[in-house]
């Protein structure tokens, strides 16, 4: 008897996730890596360009959009 659990995706539902199965070497991965400027700006934000111990002063923060609903994976 197989067990089926409810899994709720929070993010990256609209795109196929980058996994280690998808490439073998640096060049292949470089072709797959997409650094969304908006995301990189947040992931490696001002604090991390200087030092995480240096916490930047408050600035206007854009509102967070709702997650994009993604389709259910088809059952086998």
């Amino acid at each position: 008897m197989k067990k089926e659990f409810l899994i709720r995706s929070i993010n990256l539902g609209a795109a196929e996730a980058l996994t280690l199965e998808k490439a073998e070497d640096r060049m292949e991965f470089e072709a797959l890596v997409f650094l969304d400027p908006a995301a990189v700006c947040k992931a490696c934000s001002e604090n991390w360009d200087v030092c995480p111990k240096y916490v930047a002063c408050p600035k206007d923060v854009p509102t967070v959009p709702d997650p994009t609903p993604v389709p259910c994976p088809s059952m086998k």
Partner: protein
Amino acid sequence: MRLCEVKVKQENYRASRYLNIVDLGDGANSLLFNGINGCLDEIPNELAGILACADAERLNFLSPGNLEFLYKRGHITRLSPEQELARFTELARAIHAKRCAGALNGGLMLLLSYNCNLACPYCYQQQHRPGKSKAIMTPEMVDLLLARRINEILPGVKKSGICFYGGEPFLPAHEPAIRRALEHAKKAGIGCDSVSNTTTLHAMLDIFGEGPGKVNSLQVSLDGFRDEHDRSRVPASGAPTFDRIIANMKELLARGTALSIRLNLDRKKLATTPRLLEFLKAEGIAGHKKARIYAVPIHDNLCKIDDSDFTDIKALSKKVLDLGIDLEHPVSMRGNEMQYLMSLQQGTGLTRTTYCMQTLQNTLVADPFGDLYACFEEAGYGQWRIGHAGEDGVEFFPQREVYKNRHIANMPDCLACSIALACGGECGAMCRAKTGDLYKPSCRHTKEITLAGIAHAYNKFKAAGKPAAANAGAVPAGSHD
């Protein structure tokens, strides 16, 4: 045919070494956080238990639909641990290469002198201050750094900022250099930042404010409420500074200067924090839209100092939570940083191949001698200079390349870590001090703090009414044969 393929795959699945399982603390659900791609999925704790044991046989009790979904998200894999490690190394190199090739923002931190009017016992500059305190940055050195040599000092940096740093940057003796730097900033259309003890700047308030050519923002530190603060953040004479700093903060906010208020805390200072926050609220500082207040533990990366009252970031975060006060602490700050992941719908979610300026070197510290440093805590320690700027040009030293190579693809301990791309390899100065090896991380509670930060961010995301839509990306509950 398809069913057969799925069955064969099932037998080879195992949990990825880069899968993180985060307890959401509600007694029912956990969050899967993939350390390769940033995928986040909420699952029942029973499934979390199966994934946590990393037992391939137990995975085979999962439905084909669950397995396929977990596989596509990278949470389970058919690669061996060794293959995963090898491929993660290649991926980290690929991400780092792309980050380095991208347009970079950066800037110069002008260390105007090593002089400071305070004598804080934990200062990381205290050892070399006596030998370097006579040099003060001149307006001519400012011209050399910001106009004549800037493209050699920061090659490839498209947009350069200026940060005033010291010692204490706003000492009267520094004013000529500051005003010259602000002229350059105005010409370039940029505002400036600063890190200051905020005890002397009332003598030059006109340089602060909004817009180009002004000091737009300032990081200031408090060491607890008045009595505690006035025991440690004081001049050699012991004269108090708390009230002057508060008065100057209010002046700065009135002029539109943003404040990042850092509470340097140890066990004793932490106990005074609730009263301090009440005071800051009453003074119109806490809650001001241009003020951010956060707590950090006092640390000792470079100097041997009395650490008997020190607290670590894990204990500090817990204590702040226990006190029930509205204060950013290391866990909530990590959560704020990771908040972007909640709404990420495309792109490579995790990109931190480096920890700070020390590796990318798109921001450098320049001191009055023209010496260049890649870490502001190391400024003044001659052995860690990465270069020198002078009349004859800019010379870079081998240390520059040593630091440039300090990214996770070159750090074996980090490559084996499930949160490496969310961390970047920890503070190099601290790691070298703690492990004796720049490339060997001293992680302490980093993973715990990061995962707790993600749980904090997710719970905040849900509380804001923005959880994943019902059944979005989900397979229905129940059993399936």
